[in-house]
């Protein structure tokens, strides 16, 4: 008998009475979504740029490039100085990655990104600094609403990103910049 079969046989004697699936009827907080989003993004150590949109972002990037930084952009209309590499490992020297976010979540400052917009899946993690672009109208109140809007087709990868990578594993002291990006700037369009 296969191990799967053994496990399934054992599962015939589960002692819990069959329970119905509960109803997820949680009222969303819909007042000032951008304000909520900004407050929570700040608590997770990210920064929101409300004004100036893509032009502001391009100006910032041009400054980075002038300083010799390596910038890859996956956002239409934003120009970096690096293209998608043949292998994921070649992204190791990327200083700034610009990536479009699909859905923003007001209650926690998280932004959903899907691998169609990443080139390599590792892009938002391996870059030294991450820049995400999100439309104000794509910000929803909570994770329940986000769950209905995110795209995750068969075979795909997607991730909610809430701030730069961080750790508090040494004496509970918060350090921003663990293994993923060391900073997160979000540009609203």
């Amino acid at each position, binding site marked *: 008998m296969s191990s799967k079969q053994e496990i399934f046989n054992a599962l015939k004697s*589960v002692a*819990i009475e069959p*329970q119905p*699936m509960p109803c*997820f009827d949680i009222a969303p907080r819909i007042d000032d979504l951008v304000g909520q989003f900004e407050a929570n993004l700040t608590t997770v150590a990210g920064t929101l740029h409300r004004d100036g949109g893509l032009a502001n972002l391009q100006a910032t990037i041009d400054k980075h490039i002038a300083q010799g930084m390596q910038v890859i952009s996956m956002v239409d209309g934003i120009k970096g100085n690096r293209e998608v590499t043949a292998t994921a490992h070649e992204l*190791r020297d990327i200083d700034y990655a610009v990536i479009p976010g699909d859905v923003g979540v007001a*209650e926690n400052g998280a932004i959903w990104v899907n691998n169609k917009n990443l080139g390599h899946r590792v892009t938002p993690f391996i870059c030294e600094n991450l820049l995400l672009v999100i439309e104000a109208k794509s910000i929803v109140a909570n994770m329940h609403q*986000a769950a209905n809007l995110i795209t995750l087709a068969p075979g795909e*990868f997607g991730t*909610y990103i809430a701030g730069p990578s961080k750790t508090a594993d040494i004496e509970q002291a918060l350090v921003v910049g663990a293994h993923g990006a060391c900073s997160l700037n979000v540009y609203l369009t």
Partner: protein
Amino acid sequence: MSTSTSNVHAHKAEIFCRDESRVDWHSKALWALREKRDRAAGSIPEWEQLRQIGSEMKLHTLSHLADYLEKFEQNCIKNNISVHWAKDGAEHNRIVHEILAKHQVKKIVKSKSMLTEECHMNPYLEERGIEVIDTDLGERIIQLAKMPPSHIVVPAIHMKKEEVGDLFHEKLGTDAGASDPLYLTRAARRHLREQFLSADAAMTGVNMAIADKGAVVVCTNEGNADMGANLPKLQLHSMGIDKVVPDLDSAAVLLRTLARNATGQPITTYSSFYRGPQDGGEMHVIIVDNGRTDMLKDKILAESLKCIRCGGCLNTCPVYRRSGGYSYNYTIPGPIGIAVGAQHDDTNSIAWACTLCGSCSYVCPTKVPLDKIIHHHRRLKAEAGKLPYGKSNYMPLVGKFMASETALNCSMAIARTALRMLPGSLLKPFSGAWGKYRELPVAPNSSFEAWFKKNRG
């Protein structure tokens, strides 16, 4: 009955308690997490509703587990994910090794997984010539220090920054005497970047497995799971059968409570959904039983499988905070460690490492009735004739004694008089282990029964 005295909880706790200032520091560090958790929970008005929904959704899933596991496997296969089944830790390790050996893997980077700790996977792979690199900072620290985790979310919580500094100086070549957390974290970042970039395979645990999508969700703050899984072409994910949830909506409920209850963050930095391997890559999911179906056969123990491993119950536990993660004789410490580990505890002592105060059940994001489960473990130990040393001798006598009204009233009257008349030094020895760290109580003037008759009767 096998008893290895050195692993008895009280004995291990006593060793931890020798350094009083460290115990205070440990207790306060964990309590700070509890306070952050309270603030995060209090900031969303629907918190209690989320706990209730989380609990009901997990119970629903556990009571239809075969259906959801079957669905999960079918959907994984459609997404080009290979699914493996392991009935115990040994089979899990064998499967993992076979996959790695087939790809001639020399080095694997791993993010946190309590399941692989439970299966003792690292030593198994290392014995077979595979280098295993733990990549969560806390896990890397304890791996370099050759210690097991002492907490399920913050595994190196027991170590001081100076100790980490000395360790990194020896192993990673950081400056002697340097103990600044930022400096040490940056050194670990550089060291582990090299490991990510040179690994042949990656392994992660699984926070949730989504049945109707055939996807696994992995949550980290450091980004180590995603740095690992998205660089080498081979990714493995190990999960217990209890990790499956029906759909994205269900996962959303748990994502709302997991980090808030663990560290007080509104969500982990990265909550990543893998619904298939990267281009040209291979993805494997290993689904492990290892005693979980046995727990499901007991109505009370079964509820411990609602756990989402946030660590909230450890942070609030008065016993864990003052006895440390190494006192439990099981991989997972604290209340949840007792709930899922007491049956494996050959010292038969950890079920008593609990005051039954219920604080753990109160903070649990999926309403695991931890104190009820721990109490149930005591009953199971008694029924199996495995009460720890002493309890099996005196407890039946105490029971008989307390059942007799005359004997109880008489002796209580004597005790009250003795407490009033005799010096404490004479009475203290009679209080045994109880009196070791406690003062004797002040004797009331009369019994409660007499007081009640006089005032309310």
